[in-house]
């Protein structure tokens, strides 16, 4: 039995591999998640869930007399709270028992806690529940903290579920080859076009003139949402900080740490608003772009009519429709997952100059799109993609240039009948 290799080696066209260590590390990581989930769940269960369940199911109800009362004060570095406490006398099988019990939870102001305490007079009676195993442990209320139960169930379950699934995957894939694992987890399917993205979402909208209306890739909308959310969240934090600083100033105190921080925070906040407004104006002022196509999916060597419809107002210095092929590669860099995109083929379909648009009207023009006969088909896998799209580039007077992409799917051309019987081997 030889010690497994740490690294795989590639020697020319063949590889000597031992993926034992990779599988072991992966298995250990997922086993660690399962253990962490079980430990975390156990701690939450024993610390919160079980005591709460015992109070509701095992504690014995009794009638208690208030023989003393006071305030329990809890002081932390940030705050001080008070909680009404009552000295109770109640009957247990062991005889009369006295113990302190709390009611109402921590209260931020002492006056309010005192007022609550005053509501209960000495010698008053109230129901209580004591622990039959430790009669000195008594509570004045029962019930469940649902958030805590949710936390108890959700977080450990997620850890155990994720880790368990990974562990099963590691065990099932243990000492299996890359090909066998691929077949185990992604069985060989008789798909008519393997590794080609579906175009169902691209052919469900009929066009007004041509057969299909293509949806946009929609980055403009996401950009607008992104800018809006950033501006909202950042300026909310800024407002809270500014109000805190303002209240301090009114109270005669100056927080020398907070005030200098506010200045760069305000600059970023205002920039965020400006960017959002700019994007909003840009999106709405340029007008919508629609693209229709005569057929879909596309085939290499095929000819297709496209109809461009551009709304807006004023003069568009240029409007250009291009067909582009883009490669996308997703890879891990440290702990980040990055996606790189690169256009590897571009062809101009049509171009128009100085297009004058009146409000309420739209520019419409047809063009002929031709796909090269040797074009690559659309391709998608877990981390890689080769995508085709029609892109409308434009520049309206007084506005920055814009580009709007319309994804299309290209299927491979039907193969030529060169399917003779396999030739004789030439060894």
């Amino acid at each position, binding site marked *: 039995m030889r010690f497994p290799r740490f690294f795989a080696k590639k020697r020319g066209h063949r590889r000597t591999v031992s993926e034992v260590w990779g599988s072991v590390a992966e298995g250990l990581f997922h086993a660690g998640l399962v253990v962490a989930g079980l430990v975390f769940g156990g701690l939450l269960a024993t610390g919160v869930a079980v005591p709460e369940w015992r109070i509701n199911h095992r504690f014995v109800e009794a009638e208690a007399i208030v023989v003393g009362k006071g305030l329990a004060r809890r002081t932390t570095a940030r705050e001080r709270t008070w909680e009404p406490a009552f000295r109770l006398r109640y009957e247990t099988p062991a005889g009369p028992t006295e113990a302190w019990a709390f009611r109402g939870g921590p209260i931020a102001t002492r006056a309010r806690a005192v007022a609550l305490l005053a509501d209960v007079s000495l010698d008053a009676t109230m129901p209580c529940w004591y622990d039959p195993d430790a009669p000195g442990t008594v509570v004045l209320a029962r019930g469940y903290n649902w958030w805590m139960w949710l936390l108890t169930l959700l977080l450990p379950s997620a850890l155990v579920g994720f880790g368990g699934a990974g562990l099963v995957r590691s065990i099932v894939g243990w000492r299996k080859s890359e090909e066998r694992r691929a077949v185990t987890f992604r069985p060989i399917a008789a798909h008519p076009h393997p*590794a080609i993205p579906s175009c169902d979402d691209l052919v469900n909208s009929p066009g007004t003139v041509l057969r299909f209306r293509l949806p946009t890739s929609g980055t403009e909308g996401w950009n607008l949402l992104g800018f809006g959310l950033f501006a909202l969240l950042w300026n909310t934090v800024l407002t809270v900080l500014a109000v805190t600083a303002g209240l301090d100033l009114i109270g005669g105190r100056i927080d020398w740490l907070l005030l200098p921080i506010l200045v760069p925070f305000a600059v970023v906040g205002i920039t965020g608003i400006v960017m959002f407004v700019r994007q909003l104006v840009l999106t709405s002022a340029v007008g919508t772009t629609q693209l229709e196509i005569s057929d879909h999916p596309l085939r290499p060597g095929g000819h297709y009519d496209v109809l461009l419809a551009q709304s807006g107002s004023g003069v568009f210095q240029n409007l250009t429709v291009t067909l582009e092929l883009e490669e996308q590669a997703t890879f891990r860099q440290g702990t980040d997952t990055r996606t790189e995109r690169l256009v590897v083929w571009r062809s101009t379909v049509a171009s128009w100059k100085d297009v004058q648009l009146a409000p309420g009207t739209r520019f419409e023009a047809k063009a002929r799109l031709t796909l090269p006969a040797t074009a690559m088909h659309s391709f998608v896998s877990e981390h*890689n993609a080769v995508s085709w799209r029609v892109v409308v580039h434009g520049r309206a007077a007084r506005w920055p240039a814009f580009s709007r992409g319309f994804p299309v799917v290209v299927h491979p051309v039907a193969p030529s009948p060169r399917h003779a019987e396999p030739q004789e*081997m030439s060894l």
Partner: protein
Amino acid sequence: MTSGLDTAGRFPAVTASFSSADRRYEPLEEILVRYTVELPPTAVVRSVERSILWYTEGKGEEDIGVHFFERITERAAVTEATAGSSFGARLPSSPLSYEGVIVKIRWCARVRLFFEEGRDFVSEHVFEVGHVPVATIVPS
């Protein structure tokens, strides 16, 4: 014809040839791979896996799509498979071989030998599907 000959004789040598002399196939065409194995004198093969698959190369993480897979574990069949044998399949309509800039798609036939000692050896033989030209960077 390709071979995985190791001059030191420590590794097996797998020699493969394809039914298409130029190793270029059309989608949906039948492919047949014939191979021979030269084993080191002390090596004992426990099982053999033969597969036809595509995988990606380039900047992204590697993806793999297995089109044909066969695992041989029965002793007599293993002996036969390591003495020299063939396997094949009808290729799918996609994906085609692609030589992109940051994404490449390669088709290959693999013969993987598992030894009694626990180690495995894989021999990979690349072939082409389709006639997609090499991609280049487009100036922006």
